[in-house]
């Protein structure tokens, strides 16, 4: 008999966890993992594999977990995915592997993400054999940006025997995994561990390196690199362009999250970077970034954390689990609401003027377009406002690389299969190509580009 429901994962209660930055779910025990893995039907066509952007052999690893052979399970995962501890936690599984799981047609799908996380966490406490690296090819590759795309490309290229250097402009590697996604969702120790693994393989990671200023892509190619991979991400915060955006207390989500995650403002004054939150915080937006901001605000002491989103609940782009966790923690959702001005006194934000919206005809994205309801203006009070409406491409490398073709959104035009750009020897992948997307898609792009780069530098 098959259990129709997933084995639940124990987690901190909503009331408890909003007072700390610890991870919310605790993870499966050995028995829970084996029981959940046993739910897999071992489908011959295994649609789940195609649902995973990096094509993990999901039934094979689930079988190993069921048989309590976690070492084998993690080995299966790692042939396709270098960062399972990260993906198991942050993949939008409901639209990927679990979204197409056969079991999910009638019951709850297999909890693939949680099991992937279980295997990765097991590995962290069991010394693994060092990843084998092919003999040196004498070829040098530069990777710009130490986010999931760049790190994956670097790891793959190193395994193939190339000499790889990653250049990162911040003082730590990890990209969004370090500065964006909060500790309570993705503990930074996990990211650091994965990055240490890359270093042990011989990947050089150089922080504080502002590519575009310190050296350009063309200079890197001229200066001895056989190929360059650009994985600089979508780091440029967008604003609404409405009155009052310059008021103190209006943050981009990037600023709010960077102050918290990267600079540890929640430990101020122990750490030197401050962050002012106030009693009532309004976050504008409906994606993961908005959920992370609203939940972070609670942990920083806000008594009320509200989300204002211009579409309806159905259209929320956030991972389902994040929206669910946000609600449990008391985040108050205001759907079909759109800000039109930030209000302030003495240079400080005091509120938001909004319009009510209703859903009209479907737009280009297939979602019904929100249209304003005439005369529905109203005001909401706020001590801080966080704008989480999306990020554009990080500009530095793009502005300093003549000949690099960009599309009309300013993203790099790259071959989806190889990452090849308009400049020979220059490859790109991740958010800088697709616009803000997901960790696993960025990794998939890094991996495909690594294969193409390998072929390119060997042919040189």
């Amino acid at each position: 008999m098959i259990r129709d429901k997933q084995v639940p994962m124990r987690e901190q209660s909503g009331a408890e966890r909003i007072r700390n930055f610890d991870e919310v779910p605790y993870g499966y025990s050995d028995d829970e993992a084996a029981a959940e893995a046993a739910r897999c039907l071992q489908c011959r066509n295994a649609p789940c594999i195609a649902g995973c952007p990096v094509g993990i052999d999901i039934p094979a690893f689930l079988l190993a977990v069921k048989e309590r052979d976690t070492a084998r399970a993690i080995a299966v995962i790692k042939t396709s995915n270098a960062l399972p501890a990260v993906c198991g936690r942050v993949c939008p599984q409901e639209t990927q592997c679990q979204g197409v799981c056969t079991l999910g047609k009638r019951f709850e799908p297999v909890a693939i993400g949680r099991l992937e996380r279980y295997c990765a966490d097991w590995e962290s406490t069991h010394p693994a054999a060092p990843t084998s690296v092919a003999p040196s090819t004498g070829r040098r590759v530069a990777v710009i940006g130490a986010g999931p795309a760049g790190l994956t490309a670097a790891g793959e290229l190193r395994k193939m025997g190339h000499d790889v250097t990653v250049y990162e402009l911040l003082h730590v590697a990890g990209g969004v995994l370090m500065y964006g996604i909060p500790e309570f969702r993705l503990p930074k120790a996990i990211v650091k561990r994965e990055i240490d693994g890359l270093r042990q393989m011989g990947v050089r990671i150089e922080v504080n390196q502002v590519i575009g200023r310190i050296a350009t892509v063309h200079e890197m190619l001229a200066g001895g690199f056989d190929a360059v991979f650009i994985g600089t991400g979508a780091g440029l915060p967008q604003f609404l362009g409405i009155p009052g955006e310059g008021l103190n207390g209006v943050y981009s989500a990037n600023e709010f999250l960077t102050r918290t995650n990267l600079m540890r403002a929640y430990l101020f004054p122990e750490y030197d970077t401050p962050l002012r939150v106030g009693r009532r915080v309004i976050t504008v937006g409906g994606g993961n970034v908005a959920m992370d901001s609203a939940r972070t605000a609670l942990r920083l002491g806000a008594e009320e954390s509200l989300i204002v989103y211009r579409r309806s609940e159905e259209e929320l782009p956030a991972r389902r689990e994040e929206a669910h966790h946000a609600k449990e923690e008391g985040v108050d959702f205001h759907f079909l609401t759109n800000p039109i001005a930030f209000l302030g006194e003495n240079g400080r934000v005091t509120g938001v003027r909004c319009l009510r919206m209703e859903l009209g005809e479907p737009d280009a994205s297939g979602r019904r377009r929100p249209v304003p309801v005439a005369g529905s203006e109203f005001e909401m009070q706020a001590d801080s406002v966080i704008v989480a409406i999306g990020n554009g491409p990080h500009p530095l490398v793009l502005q300093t690389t003549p000949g690099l073709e960009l599309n009309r959104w300013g993203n790099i035009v790259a071959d989806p299969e190889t990452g090849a750009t308009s400049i020979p020897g220059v490859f790109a992948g991740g958010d800088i190509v697709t616009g803000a997307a997901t960790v696993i898609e960025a990794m998939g792009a890094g991996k495909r580009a690594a294969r193409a780069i390998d072929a390119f530098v060997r042919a040189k």
Partner: protein
Amino acid sequence: MYKILEKRRLGPGIQEYVILAPDVARVGKAGQFIVLRLHERGERIPLTIVDCDPKGGGVTLVVQEVGKSTREMGETFGVGDSVLDFAGPLGVASEIERYGTVICIGGGLGIAPLYPIARDLKRAGNTVIGIIGARNKELLFYEDRMRAVCDEFHVMTDDGSYGRKGFVSDPLREILAAGRPIHRVWAIGPAIMMKVCAKVTKEFSVPTVVSLNSVMIDGTGMCGGCRVEVGSATKFACVDGPEFDGHAVDFDLLMARQKFYAEEESCSLERYLAERKGAETR
């Protein structure tokens, strides 16, 4: 780690450092800045590049001790010590061209970032009129360096303790009112000083460059915390600037934003001073 090669006191609470950062020293230009972090718990502080030694790898900075981080740097970081992080060059370099006659105005600490601009403008063949000013004689520095690159030079102090008594905008107005052809003005210093200078040059329609020191976090275009309004468009001072058209900048907004964390900053400073005191008496 980035080693401090030299350290020199220029005035009360003003230190000049030379820090070993060969990659930055190779390419850093006038008008650009770096971001440094003293230690693991430190904040990222933006500081303007005053000079680069591409051969020796040193980058010269001038730091005014205004709060916790800058005081900590002044009091506990000496020659031979290292700062943890040092990233740059950031921002867009000054547009150095042969304009004709230019006026370079530096107020207070603004003299430090102004110096390399004046120097490069001179090298580019401009006639350079320098105006520097500070609250008093003690706080004035780089007079000799500035004099060496200026064809004409004015020194002002608020209290008259040195040079002429008055503000840097006084000689600026006199020069412009005398009808001398001036092709461009650089004004760098406290926001209020830049605002006043820009107002004067606007009357005479002389293009004016100012350098905005809004509060920054990453300094790389990633957080939007440094945003400023220039000609009613939102710009990020760290990547679009820090230099902007002084006639288009909303200085009042800049000043309001600079003050946002005043309470936290003073709390951090007091805590630091109490700790220092504890350490000294122990």
